[in-house]
């Protein structure tokens, strides 16, 4: 106990902590600046009227384009950003709107686009496949079903919201 700190050690510690203090004063703003997107909260999405009367929705999935307004940093396209939903009615007549983003690694799926796989969603990137209700076909790369958009119906028309989480 009570080991004495030598003059040399004292100076080393003092110099070291001063240098550390100055270095962190320099690095902190830069690191905080770089990680800001991680700490920022994403905006909340609204429901969009996709201009589709409910009566026109059939059991056959149909690609519905709709436009959302979202700011990407400083960039906000004037005409919004166009998204796609695969809209259909399920067996009991409820509306189902599937996201086209592949649950393997994020490419875009298409309905019935590969003649080999009739009545399935097909992803060209690594041949992922999904059934009509969005469940992934076992043995293909995706491990989860396609995301569903939240939907609402107002005045007989379809509104599409954010993806269900």
């Amino acid at each position, binding site marked *: 106990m009570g080991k004495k700190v030598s003059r040399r050690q004292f100076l080393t510690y003092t110099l070291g902590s001063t240098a550390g203090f100055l270095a962190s004063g320099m690095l902190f703003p830069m690191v905080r600046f770089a*990680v800001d997107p991680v700490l920022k909260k994403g905006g909340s999405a609204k429901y969009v009227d996709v201009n589709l009367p409910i009566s026109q929705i059939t059991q056959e999935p149909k690609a519905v384009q709709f436009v959302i307004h979202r700011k990407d940093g400083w*960039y906000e396209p004037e005409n919004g950003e166009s998204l796609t939903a695969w809209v259909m009615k399920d067996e009991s007549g409820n509306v189902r709107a599937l996201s086209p983003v592949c649950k393997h690694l994020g490419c875009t799926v298409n309905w019935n686009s590969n003649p080999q796989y009739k009545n399935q969603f097909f992803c060209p990137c690594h041949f992922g496949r999904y059934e009509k209700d969005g469940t992934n076909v076992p043995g293909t790369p995706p491990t989860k079903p396609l995301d569903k958009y939240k939907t609402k119906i107002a005045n007989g028309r379809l509104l599409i919201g954010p993806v269900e989480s």
Partner: protein
Amino acid sequence: MLKAMYEWIDERLDINPIWRDVADHEVPEHVNPAHHFSAFIYCFGGLTFFVVVIQILSGMFLAMYFVPDIVNANASVAYLQNELAMGAIVRGMHHWGASVAIVMLFLHTLRVFFTGSYKHPREFNWVVGISIFFVMLGLGFTGYLLPWDNKAYFATKVGLEIASSVPFLGAYIKTFLQGGDIVGAQTLARFFALHVFFLPAALLGLLGAHFVLIRRQGISGPL
């Protein structure tokens, strides 16, 4: 005239010993292809460095025209490739060089592995080498987004999705690299900064360490 200039500088800076130390050393027989042709496998490290020099130079020149902005990036690449003298050549050097660099790096790694050169006392240089490998992969990944075409966009989406599969930290890594909620304006700006400033700086630092270690430890002996 040149000699006089060199001597004038050398007299003041004493640079003679510096370049002597860098350049003036024996190449052992077992690594010299002039003695045994099979020794060409020892060239892959130097070839990797040569290609990296090409990447840095061609990249610096591409950056004179390239604009890292989602509205203009693709048009600026099309412009520099199609409307400038030698554009296809300079972009081609950078485009094909990126793959050649990775291939050379891989062959060099195989040479080191199969000659057992990673063993003590060179194990630390193996670690430096693997770090160089990851930095090069990073350069390839970030550079690939820059032309901002469909291939670039979806390759980056897939790559970021792979990064986000890291346990616990994945989502943060993805958002950090993406710079926002989507692959977009902020992603391109970020990838450009990483591609031309951060990663080349890291690469040069690691290459410096790699070469200092080689000079200290010498090339490994014959099999």
